[in-house]
């Protein structure tokens, strides 16, 4: 590189053009829009003012664009004959108690601690799509969240003030592809991997780390100098940039050391990293991906479904252990919602399952929720679909006679999750334009 190289060339070659560090890769995520063309940038996040709220919950949200067969092996899916289940002994139909009421589910679910089961709600609903790439639409409750935001992003924005979190956007820890990524008010969020967290958040090693405070102070002086002549958009950016530095310095070194011990991106590592991030109070919502059988069109004897259901439920049980160890068992709600469920009929699903947008089960586990089953399923054409729901009891109502029709069951799930986790019910009704809260799902 010559000494008279233009600034742009230098930046491209040194900062943005080196090896794996391609221009697009690094440029993405850089806040270019504010300085380059503020008109193109979307509006800043809109966290609401919210007083400290004891009912506010952190949410660990597991989602999958694969459309895993969760719906096939949970309470409610054994209420009628004709539904295929894995024949593996580890998946044997087993009785379990949810808040004092008996249900049947695949054996792994019965292994969860009773205290956890008593706050586990299996919410049967539709997602109305059979397309893998529609996960983001399902996360938007098929467009019924205000301004087409994602449900988790709306909840995070509403709860950030209540919880005093560092940021008001959800964090994505587990996405396996861009279709599982998160947006908040339309802005893409970083996809973090558990194994990379310590590397991202830790201060530089060696001498440069030793004088971080001096460098921070001098960067503050640079920022102040830039701010003197900046536009309002640039000053806003500088304020947020300064805030991000304060956030970075507030991170506990001991928690960073805990993160450094996470060396892979397995579901258990995602859970471990999420618990640490909750302890850091980084975000109200963290998304992960716990496999439960995946896109199992071809799955002889449903063996993969069986294996991953065992490991998936075990990961959820591990979450309970870790939350209790951290004293967060009453502060964190776990929710698992995928793009769609899988077909169920035993007549054609013993060696694999197809996409089923008419029936899916979201699993909700947390202090705000009452153990049990909301909704249910009924035969339709050659398979099954979610039934309408009675909003007060949560009971399934046949023939579409419930006050939550099949077409609103997804929005009802969204309202129930949001309200249960502490979002003001007025906001819930304002921000989710369809469906009703299911009071019977709440503790």
């Amino acid at each position, binding site marked *: 590189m010559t000494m008279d190289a233009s600034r742009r060339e230098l930046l491209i070659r040194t900062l943005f053009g080196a090896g794996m560090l391609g221009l697009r890769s690094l440029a993405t995520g850089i806040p270019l829009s504010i300085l380059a063309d503020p008109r193109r940038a979307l509006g800043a996040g809109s966290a609401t003012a919210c007083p400290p709220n004891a009912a506010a919950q952190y949410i660990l949200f597991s989602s999958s664009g694969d459309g895993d067969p969760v719906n096939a092996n949970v309470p409610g899916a054994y209420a009628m004959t004709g539904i295929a289940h894995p024949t593996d002994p580890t998946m044997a139909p087993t009785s379990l108690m949810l808040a004092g009421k008996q249900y049947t589910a695949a054996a792994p679910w019965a292994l969860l601690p009773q205290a956890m089961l008593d706050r586990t709600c299996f919410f049967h609903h539709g997602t109305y799509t059979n397309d893998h790439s529609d996960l983001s639409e399902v996360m938007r409750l098929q467009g019924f969240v205000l301004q087409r935001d994602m449900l988790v992003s709306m909840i995070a924005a509403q709860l950030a003030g209540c919880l005093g979190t*560092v940021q008001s956007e959800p964090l994505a820890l587990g996405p396996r592809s861009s279709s599982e990524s998160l947006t908040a008010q339309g802005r893409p969020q970083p996809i973090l*991997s558990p194994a990379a967290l310590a590397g991202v958040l830790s201060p530089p090693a060696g001498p440069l780390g030793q004088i971080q405070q001096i460098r921070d102070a001098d960067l503050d002086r640079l920022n102040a100098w830039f701010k003197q002549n900046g536009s309002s958009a640039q000053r806003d950016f500088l304020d947020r940039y300064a805030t991000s530095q304060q956030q970075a310095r507030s991170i506990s070194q001991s928690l960073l050391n805990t993160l450094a011990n996470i060396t892979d991106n397995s579901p258990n590592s995602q859970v471990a990293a999420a618990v640490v991030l909750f302890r850091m109070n980084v975000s109200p919502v963290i998304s992960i991906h716990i496999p439960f059988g995946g896109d199992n069109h071809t799955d002889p004897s449903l063996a993969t479904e069986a294996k991953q259901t065992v490991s998936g439920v075990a990961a959820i049980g591990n979450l309970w252990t870790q939350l209790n160890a951290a004293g967060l068992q009453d502060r964190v709600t776990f929710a698992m919602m995928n793009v769609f469920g899988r077909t169920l009929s035993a007549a054609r699903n013993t060696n694999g399952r197809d996409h089923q947008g008419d029936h899916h089960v979201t699993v909700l586990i947390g202090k705000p929720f009452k153990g049990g089953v909301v909704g249910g399923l009924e035969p339709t054409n050659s398979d099954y679909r979610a039934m309408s729901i009675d909003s007060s009891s949560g009971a399934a109502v046949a023939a579409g006679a419930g006050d939550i029709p099949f077409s609103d069951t997804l929005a009802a799930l969204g309202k129930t999750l949001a309200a249960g986790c502490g979002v003001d019910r007025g906001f819930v009704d304002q921000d989710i334009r369809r469906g009703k809260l299911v009071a019977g799902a709440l503790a």
Partner: protein
Amino acid sequence: MRVGTTVSRTVQLVVAVLPSDQYSRGAEQAVLANDPNLFFRTGLENICASLAGQLVDAGSTTRWSSTSPDPAIADFVHVLIGIEKARDTMPLTILQGHFQAAKAAGLSASDALKSTFALACLAPSVAGIGQ
């Protein structure tokens, strides 16, 4: 440093977590990531620190040398931060002051210049630049 140069594992990890610009379904303009959040700030600092090691006192073909700190710091201000000479007094003062403060804190001249590079690299006009 040229395109094709291998960067450190740290840089690769950090870059992988930064969000991508993308088009949102039905939107005519790209969605641009524009939040200097916690992860962006710490990630960029680690990128800058890592690149400092590859650009300052990095062997015979090094871009900048601590044996000539003044031209290096002037380059940081004019080329990296992008401030023209007509108004470079304050940023030059800040960077030169940082270089001296780093040495006074016990760092070698080489590490002090690397920290000065990292400081310039974190300047808002660099953090805010894009494609």
